[in-house]
């Protein structure tokens, strides 16, 4: 079947604008994760969704970041009032097995550039 897809693949935005990044997980995967990959910081966990449970937002770097997952499937990561330090690759992953994170399948990422 299809893997995790993300859109757009690239996004250039001006400082101060809002952006929305989309993730379509693998069908049937109950868990969905967002990570940020930036130079010097490596891969950082942002947020986690599991079924209908409240998401774990402990990794979100500021209140400008938010995410939702509609119908237990598609997820949108929103960054408000973007700053230059938000420039990074945003990766989405999904998995089926909850315990021990299971095997997380990653999408190709969205490269965000804030000018």
């Amino acid at each position: 079947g299809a893997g995790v897809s993300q859109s757009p693949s690239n996004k250039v935005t001006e400082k101060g604008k809002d952006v929305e990044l989309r993730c379509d997980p693998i069908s049937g995967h109950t868990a969905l994760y967002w990570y940020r990959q930036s130079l010097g910081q490596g891969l950082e966990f942002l947020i986690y969704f599991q079924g209908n449970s409240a998401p774990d937002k402990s990794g979100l770097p500021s209140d400008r970041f938010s995410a939702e997952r509609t119908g237990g499937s598609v997820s949108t990561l929103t960054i408000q009032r973007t700053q230059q330090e938000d420039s990074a690759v945003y990766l989405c992953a999904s998995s089926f097995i909850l315990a021990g994170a299971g095997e997380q399948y990653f999408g190709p990422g969205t490269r965000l550039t804030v000018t």
Partner: protein
Amino acid sequence: AQSVTQPDIHITVSEGASLELRCNYSYGATPYLFWYVQSPGQGLQLLLKYFSGDTLVQGIKGFEAEFKRSQSSFNLRKPSVHWSDAAEYFCAISGAGSYQLTFGKGTKLSVIP
């Protein structure tokens, strides 16, 4: 807090040579261990994982890794590197009942033809 250290930022090997990428972790119990590979412009692909049992695990593309509890290590090996193995490699851990992966900073592998 759990953490992962990949001591080598960049490694260069000749095609056909053997490879070992190092990974050390800090965790209060036995973690779940993963190696992922990322080719340029691509997402991460799982190479192999260790949850329990045999400490030598086999993965895709001819890779293997050995969990050594006494050394808190999970080094990745390949006996003969191919040019297509050039990529960035990430070691990651999580724990029982935990869903969050903690990644090392990655090791970039270059392969000389």
